């Protein structure tokens, strides 16, 4: 017991040393990037991937831009809107970050939108696809580098309409699930398809046996089962779908049978149809170089979410470089972020000046088994897909 008592002062000294050093570091005009990401629970894998992507971009830039050292202030939003909101308030008020990056969940971005806008701090949405954030809830301070829920699913619905006529939709019961399902339905119905069944399992559902039992009762009426189950649940969904031996085509955003999950899904993933904005197997010099340096740093293959993190950091770095580190003129910062060439591994990448959403190619894919693993084979490419919605009014 005495030992512990002696150790306490040492620890206090160590802690105060760390606190002091972080305080002095702050004074030296670092470029501070605050992240609002989920590092735990169902969405944890995405938060970590975004950080990996960003760290690679920062490393490639030599850890600094325009003489300012780049530092991350990252904390877990626990996939909880209330936690995320407090985190945003603390990051902008106390930590005085220059940029915010995040969040993973569509429900989170909705919760923090108002505070981000009022704080006049730029937020780069690195995953959450919530349509409204670049539609009626758009803000000049919000730029999305990932995708919008519509962008993935409307083209997928059109594709589905050319292969089948009756579909069921299964989506996690939260805002992204609702928006994605609605976009899929709109695209599907525009090609003469009909959604005949809807199931909304709760977020965090791990066992989908009852969903599949319900679908089996209607199996003969279905050509397609479209689904969106984010995070760890999607592995269970895809595996159990295959094990339940359901006949309709298993289809959904590419995140369903994400590259991350091939190891856990194995053959169960084969044949799953997806829609997304990045495929690791894209054979361009830019993507090959990206994959090589990513693999060297992390000893794993990158996937779409890593690219989203990478491109978010790239926009920040290029814009700050262009402005020579001067970030006080907010309008100039936004303009710089719209103008810079990010040179994204995904190929065409442009921020839509009218709403802040990314304009990019969308790939309809199918999971195939190859020597040495699985990959997404591109069935159809839709070029420069842009959200046609006009409801965004940018107000500073």
């Amino acid at each position: 017991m005495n030992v512990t008592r002696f150790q306490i002062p040492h620890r206090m000294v160590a802690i105060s040393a760390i606190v002091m050093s972080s305080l002095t570091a702050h004074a030296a005009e670092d470029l501070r990037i605050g992240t609002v990401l989920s590092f735990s629970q169902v969405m944890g894998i995405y938060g970590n991937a975004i950080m990996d992507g960003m760290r690679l971009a920062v490393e490639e830039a030599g850890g600094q831009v325009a003489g300012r050292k780049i530092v991350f202030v990252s904390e877990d939003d626990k996939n909880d809107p209330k936690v995320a909101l407090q985190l945003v308030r603390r990051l902008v008020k106390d930590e005085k970050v220059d940029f915010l990056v995040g969040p993973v969940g569509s429900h989170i971005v909705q919760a923090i939108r108002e505070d981000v806008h009022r704080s006049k701090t730029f937020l780069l949405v690195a995953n959450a696809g919530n349509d409204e954030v670049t539609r009626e809830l758009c803000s000049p301070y919000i730029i999305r580098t990932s995708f919008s829920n519509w962008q993935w699913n409307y083209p997928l619905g059109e594709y589905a309409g050319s292969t089948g006529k009756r579909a069921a939709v299964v989506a996690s019961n939260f805002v992204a699930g609702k928006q994605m399902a609605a976009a899929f339905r709109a695209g599907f119905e525009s090609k003469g398809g009909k959604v005949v069944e809807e199931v909304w399992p709760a977020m965090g559902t791990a066992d989908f046996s009852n969903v599949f039992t319900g679908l089996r009762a209607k199996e003969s009426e279905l050509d397609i089962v479209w689904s969106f189950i984010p995070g760890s649940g999607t592995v269970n969904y895809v595996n159990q779908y295959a094990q339940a031996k359901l006949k309709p085509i298993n289809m959904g955003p590419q995140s369903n049978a994400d590259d991350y999950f091939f190891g856990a899904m194995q053959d169960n993933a084969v044949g799953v149809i997806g829609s997304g904005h990045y495929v690791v197997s894209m054979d361009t010099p830019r993507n090959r170089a990206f994959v090589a340096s990513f693999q060297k740093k992390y000893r794993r293959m990158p996937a779409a979410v890593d690219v989203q993190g990478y491109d978010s950091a790239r926009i920040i770095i290029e814009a700050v470089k262009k402005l020579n580190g001067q970030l006080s003129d907010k309008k100039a910062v936004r303009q710089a972020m719209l103008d810079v060439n990010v040179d994204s591994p995904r190929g065409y990448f442009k921020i839509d000046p009218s709403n802040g959403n990314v304009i990019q190619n969308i790939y309809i894919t199918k999971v195939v088994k190859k020597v040495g693993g699985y990959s997404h084979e591109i069935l159809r490419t839709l070029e420069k897909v842009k959200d046609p919605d006009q409801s965004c009014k940018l107000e500073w």
Partner: protein
Amino acid sequence: MGIFLEYTVNAVQTGLLLFIISSGLTLSFGLMRVINMAHGSFYMVGAFLGLQIALISGSFLLGLAGAAIGSALTGLLAEKVLFQRIYARGPFAQVLVSFGLIFVFDELVRILWGGEIRSMPRPTLLSDSFEFAGAHLEAYRLFLIAFGGVLSGLLLWSLVRTPFGMMVRAAVDDRESAELLGMDVRRLFSFVFLLGSGVAGMAGFVAIPLVNAFPGMGDEVLISALVVVVMGGLGSVLGSLVASMLIGLALTLGQIFVAGYAPVAMYLVLAIVLLVSPNGLLGKAE
């Protein structure tokens, strides 16, 4: 008819799996009044150890044995090193320490196996599914029912019929008197802890083909397990069994009729049970 049978199989399987996860928690709660938030971690440790052994040996049964032994020993270690020091310190210390232990175990698993989601195919013998009375039944889910049924039966039988079980029940009912009669309740508890962790570890392992293994998987089941313990009545294993089956049924009904709010069904049943019987289904008044 077929669809009804399928739903029944799903409900029974969910309930039995929940019971074998929570039985250890019920006993430790009932016996020592110790609140072990880290119980889900033993479920996770069992899953990962078993998975590793099954991958190396290619044998599902060896994996199951490894899961049981590995998580039981981990539980025993945690009990000897940590919990024994905090029994007397009341619920706050217990919650804090065992809650901290969750992070320790999650991080350890992340260091040892990485953060990704890992899966395991069903054993070949059990990978089939077949049609019966218009229902599509998966062999593995039937195996889980049989496995859970046998394990639950053994557990209940040993509590009612064996000298060990009698000692446990005596100590749960009245610990002071049991100690006065010369029983070593501490040692008994160490053994119960070991047993409970081992059973939870087995549950973690057999659950992998359905819900996979990943760091943090224990947190997901912890809440349900706590609900089972409270609903069944502190220390009542039979109460836990009934509570688990009720929750399995409630979750299935919830998923059929209000899928988006199915988890609420569990709390709804808990609330109703506690309103009718504040000590849980088979718990005794303190």
